[in-house]
């Protein structure tokens, strides 16, 4: 479904992503794990068109998207839940969801909004509230809900567990799993490697901009190096 081949991303002189290639197949949960600063967010931003790769090729649903503008990718079925939730703080909860469904019509949106509310009842209670007043967990739910509004084929999530209490992390991960079971393909970027690998099918390990390991999730959980570096021994 998503195929990334040999991308290189620079911030000025900093070579943040080095010759990275990976693939996500229809129906999978694939995780990209790595320490802070490894280049995970940079990779997601490059896929979604916010940053550009020097050379290489990115294709989505067999169509090259390496030079597509970011706003056009939503229409193709790609959704990106950015790091740090990035909800629109001054808009209401419901307006945030409407923005998520910006590319669709009102009728489709009102139906999808109900689905999102069913999935996240806490959000429904707060629908008229200014989104900036939500708690961190609620904001993450809103950010996830907002990304579902465009009925995406592939959702890329950048550290959805960041800064959340363990109960909420559990909840978010079980929602991701449910979404996947309902047919959405997921690319999950995480520092919380144990949680990510527990729901993923496959994983890639990223170290200072390079992919160093690729295996199915179970094998990565049992890999000694992964255990030492990412799972705390």
């Amino acid at each position: 479904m998503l195929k990334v081949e040999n991308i290189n991303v620079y911030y000025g002189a900093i070579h943040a992503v080095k010759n990275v290639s990976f693939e996500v197949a229809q129906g999978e949960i694939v995780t990209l794990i790595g320490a802070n600063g490894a280049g995970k967010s940079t990779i997601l931003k490059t896929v979604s068109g916010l940053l550009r790769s020097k050379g290489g090729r990115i294709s989505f649903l067999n169509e090259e998207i390496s030079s597509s503008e970011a706003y056009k990718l939503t229409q193709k079925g790609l959704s990106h839940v950015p790091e740090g939730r990035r909800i629109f703080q001054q808009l209401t909860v419901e307006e945030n969801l409407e923005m998520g469904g910006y590319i669709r019509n009102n009728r489709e949106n009102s139906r999808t909004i109900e689905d999102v509310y069913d999935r996240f009842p806490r959000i429904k209670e707060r629908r008229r509230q200014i989104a900036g007043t939500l708690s961190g967990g609620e904001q993450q739910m809103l950010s996830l809900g907002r990304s579902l509004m465009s009925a995406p084929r592939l959702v890329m999530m950048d550290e959805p567990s960041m800064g959340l209490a363990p109960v909420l992390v559990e909840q978010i991960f079980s929602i991701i799993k449910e979404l996947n079971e309902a047919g959405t393909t997921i690319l999950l970027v995480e520092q919380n490697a144990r949680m990510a690998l527990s729901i993923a099918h496959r994983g890639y390990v990223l170290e200072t901009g390079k992919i160093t390991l690729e295996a199915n999730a179970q094998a990565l959980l049992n890999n000694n190096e992964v255990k030492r570096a990412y799972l705390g021994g």
Partner: protein
Amino acid sequence: MTLVYLMINGLQIGSIYALVALGYSMVYGIVKLINFAHGDIIMVGAYSTWYLMSRFSAPAWLAVTATIVMCSVLGVLIEKIAYKPLRKSDRLSLLVTAIGISLLLQNVAQLLFSANPRMFTNIFTGSVSIGERQFSNATTVTIAVSIVIMLLLTLLVKHTRMGKAMRAVSEDYETAQLMGINVNNTISFTFALGSGLAAVGAVFYCCSYSQIQPTMGSMLGLKAFVAAVLGGIGSMPGAMIGGLCIGIAESLTKGYISSQLTDAVVFGILIVVLLIKPSGMFGRRMNEKV
């Protein structure tokens, strides 16, 4: 009665400031640029209406409509040609570019129409008397139409798809793109809207103060900018209230103190706001991102 009279005159010039201040504020909200060329759009609007009416004897409604369209297009072009290539540069380069555009517009106007003032014929002639005072129709039309425009604009930003996209882009343009919002179109729309409002302001201004000249946009623009800062730059209700407040402050100064002090009072307000509450009446704190 004097007070009421001064208040109404204050509302009249204040409505014009408000229309212009909205342009400053909307553009600042969306591209974080103080568009110093905005005041000169007023001047372009004034010359355009005057030219169409005096040279082509165009009916007023046609001249005004054509002027609004022309100013909107000009605003969009300025953004596309001068500001867009600098979107990723530092703010100072943008600011200097804006000042450059302002000078360019003034000089082109001087070239085309000379520096001599031209006389604009009021299109809302006649007057109504309330008590022993006379109010020109230009005054009442300015206030009434401006209020209607501001209400419509509020509804547009609050409820329409484009209005919501404008708010989303001004808050976080990267995330807005991830939602499928075409940021370039949203920015163009904002410039078109702001410049269109400046054109309307220009027509109202000229109907009450008939002289037009190439530099007329500077002072008017600067005062509207003060209004936008007073209200809280980036805030639309702030621009509206700020504009009306500046207009009333000017009118009261003229009536009770001295007409020579109006400019001093306006810029005094700017200094006080910047000292006491730089974010203005409706401004958000600057560090809104956590």
